């Protein structure tokens, strides 16, 4: 079995080949071919990932060294891949969900020109490659390469329909926001190099895990972890850098599912879970992570309550769920966070793909006020979407219940207040998801007649991924059944335990009594259920009123005016400074200097030209004066 570890390089290389093929031959390749190459390479990577999963199951960690990437004096950074349990979980999510989304895309993007179609698959493959590089790198530099790669692909895919200026701006916004985060990440890496002299996971973690050899002071660790978290804020859309993610919905829907829900945005979670030992050593950073995560979860959930665009609701729900994952990381429930990444990948990808199926059927209509009653027309989409809603609302025994419960239990062990706010967020999640469900699928159809005539169930390439993901959304949580239900039921915890071993030796694991845990679960489930039923009841009878929202509703509908706030305090001042620099510094200062040199030479030459009078006497006078000058210089200087 361990032979497979010699071939782990194939996992990222396959999508890279797919990218090169589709990208270079995009004008020649047919749509079918591009689809097969694009999906096939990811499927191949998925198959290898399964084998890798089984070979690292016993607790093995495999590091493969390929070549020295940077070799300066004492600093050696190798191009190394590392596969362990955490990596293999992410490999399965990325390639598995990625493959389903590739298949889905072959149908969803069928209206594109062949060369755009191939370009789309090339970008998707490049994205999968970068993401695999991110999770497989054995040091922070390789991770950073993947980190930047996914940011680039995100930009390319959000602005895939680049003829629309709004979409382009959304891509630009995502890129800039991510760059702000990346800057923090880079600083953290430099700090590590200065203090530890290595960016290799093993060397860094082994050095800091033992108090005696630890080269980092508490200040260093706190600084590094906070800077890393700035990187995670950008990539995983946390306050204050979350505003790019809802705008990123400008991209094609499968892209939203793959990048902005299932994989790329979880890069921050992966990075912190990978650096768990550093965070365990920096309690201040952990608290910051938990508070930011919780605040994001609540803020995004409140915004999602009032959104009317089907993808925007899902986008804010993604931001909110990512907040939960950070809450889990912040309270030390690393397994819970990774578990939630996994279940979230299933149900959120499913929700986005279901939304894509709806948008496809509604001829690109995204406003849920114009939908309703789609249950009759799209049975498969309807059922799968409903299952995903149950999963995200945390209803037992769907997958979301287990992972969310684990995070909330971890939060309760840290502080009951965190738990209380977390539950409030979960209740809101149940409410807005079922508002979305009821307005889309129940009640009467509120769209135009033309749209109604066009309604149809989507083709097999779309429903197939939906069904697979629906099954995973239902049963995906069963790998992490908590201790109270079944002894040794938490398979994922056992599987991941080697990764978090160093952290667990430092901190004592909080164990809640079974009765407390039952009460916590019961409370959150009952409250969520009430919200769910209320939303179901109220919005299945939704009628278009055309009334403007007022008061708090209006604030929520406008996303707390955060975009406007950023616009006022950052974008506008930057633009006015730029305008000042352009008008004054550039035009008057630099241009003035450059033109001034030209003008001075011009004027000077015109004056000197007059010496050339053609009068012999004047020349001779000049000559004599020159000679006299030389004499004077000779005598007195």
């Amino acid at each position, binding site marked *: 079995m361990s032979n497979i570890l010699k071939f782990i390089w194939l996992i990222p290389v396959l999508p890279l080949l797919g990218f090169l093929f589709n990208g270079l031959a995009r004008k020649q390749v047919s749509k079918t071919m591009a689809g097969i190459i694009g999906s096939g390479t990811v499927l191949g990577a998925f198959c290898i990932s399964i084998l890798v999963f089984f070979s690292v199951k016993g607790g093995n960690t495999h590091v493969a060294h390929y070549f020295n990437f940077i070799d300066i004096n004492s600093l050696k950074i190798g191009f190394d891949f590392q596969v362990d349990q955490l990596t293999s979980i992410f490999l399965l999510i990325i390639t598995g969900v990625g493959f389903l989304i590739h298949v889905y895309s072959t149908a969803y993007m069928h209206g594109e020109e062949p060369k755009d179609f191939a370009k789309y698959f090339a970008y998707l493959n490049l994205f999968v490659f970068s993401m695999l590089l991110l999770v497989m790198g054995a040091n922070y530099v390789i991770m950073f390469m993947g980190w930047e790669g996914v940011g680039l692909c995100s930009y390319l895919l959000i602005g895939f329909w680049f003829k629309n200026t709004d979409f382009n701006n959304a891509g630009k916004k995502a890129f800039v926001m991510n760059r702000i985060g990346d800057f923090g990440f880079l600083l953290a890496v430099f700090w590590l190099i200065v203090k530890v002299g290595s960016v290799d996971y093993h060397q860094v973690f082994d050095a800091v895990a033992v108090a005696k050899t630890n080269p980092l002071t508490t200040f260093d660790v706190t600084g590094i972890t906070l800077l890393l978290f700035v990187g995670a804020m950008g990539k995983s859309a946390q306050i204050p850098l979350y505003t790019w993610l809802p705008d990123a919905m400008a991209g094609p829907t499968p892209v939203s599912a793959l990048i902005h829900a299932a994989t790329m945005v979880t890069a921050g979670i992966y990075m912190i879970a990978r650096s768990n030992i550093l965070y365990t050593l920096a309690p201040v950073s952990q608290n910051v992570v938990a508070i930011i995560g919780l605040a994001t979860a609540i803020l995004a959930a409140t915004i999602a309550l009032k959104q009317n665009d089907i993808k925007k609701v899902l986008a804010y729900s993604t931001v909110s769920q990512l907040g939960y994952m950070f809450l889990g990381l912040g309270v030390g429930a690393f397994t819970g966070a990774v578990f939630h990444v996994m279940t979230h990948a299933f149900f959120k990808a499913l929700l986005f793909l279901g939304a894509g199926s709806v948008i496809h059927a509604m001829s690109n209509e995204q406003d849920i006020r114009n939908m309703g009653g789609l249950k009759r027309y799209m049975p498969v989409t309807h059922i799968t979407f409903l299952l995903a809603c149950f999963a995200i609302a945390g209803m037992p025994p769907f997958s979301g219940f287990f992972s969310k419960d684990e995070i909330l239990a971890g939060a309760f062990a840290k502080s009951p207040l965190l738990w209380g706010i977390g539950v409030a967020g979960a209740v809101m999640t149940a409410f807005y998801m079922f508002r979305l469900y009821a307005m889309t699928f129940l009640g009467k159809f509120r769209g135009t007649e033309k749209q109604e005539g066009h309604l149809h169930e989507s083709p097999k390439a779309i429903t197939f991924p939906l069904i697979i993901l629906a099954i995973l959304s239902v049963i995906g949580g069963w790998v992490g059944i908590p201790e109270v239900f079944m002894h040794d039921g938490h398979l994922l915890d056992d599987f991941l335990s080697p990764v978090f071993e160093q952290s667990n030796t430092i901190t004592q694991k909080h164990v809640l009594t079974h009765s407390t845990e039952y009460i916590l679960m019961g409370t959150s489930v009952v409250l969520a259920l009430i919200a769910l039923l209320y939303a179901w009841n109220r919005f299945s009878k939704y009628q278009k009123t055309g009334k403007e929202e007022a008061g708090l509703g209006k604030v929520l509908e406008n996303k707390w005016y955060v975009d406007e706030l950023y616009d006022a305090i950052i974008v506008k001042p930057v633009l006015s400074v730029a305008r000042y620099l352009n008008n004054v510094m550039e035009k008057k200062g630099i241009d003035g200097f450059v033109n001034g040199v030209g003008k001075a030479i011009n004027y000077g030459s015109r004056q000197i030209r007059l010496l050339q*009078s*053609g*009068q*012999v*006497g004047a020349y*001779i006078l000049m000559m*004599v004066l020159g000679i006299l000058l030389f004499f004077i210089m000779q005598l007195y200087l």
Partner: protein
Amino acid sequence: MEIKWYIGLAVALFCTGVVGVLVRRNSIIIFMCIELMLNAVNLLLVAFSKMHASSPAAIADPSIVSNAQIFVFFIMVVAAAEVSVGLAIIVMLYRNTRSVDVNFLNRLKH
């Protein structure tokens, strides 16, 4: 006679020549002024040669004395040749412009 008188005379002649070249426009007079400068230098050469030849070192070892007096004759010969060329130019100038005013020569630039 002391050397300073020779030097004074030579400088006076030279300055007369320079001023003449600067202020006069008649090319023949300019030409004569140039000759004046040349001969001022010649005079200096002869004077210095004589001074060196009568120094105690030269009396002890006459072989170090250079025959600048002879050298001056060469200069005169070359100057005579130069005068013939210069006068020829002035004659040609006069034939072309019916004038010996050097300021007419600025027309060369067109």
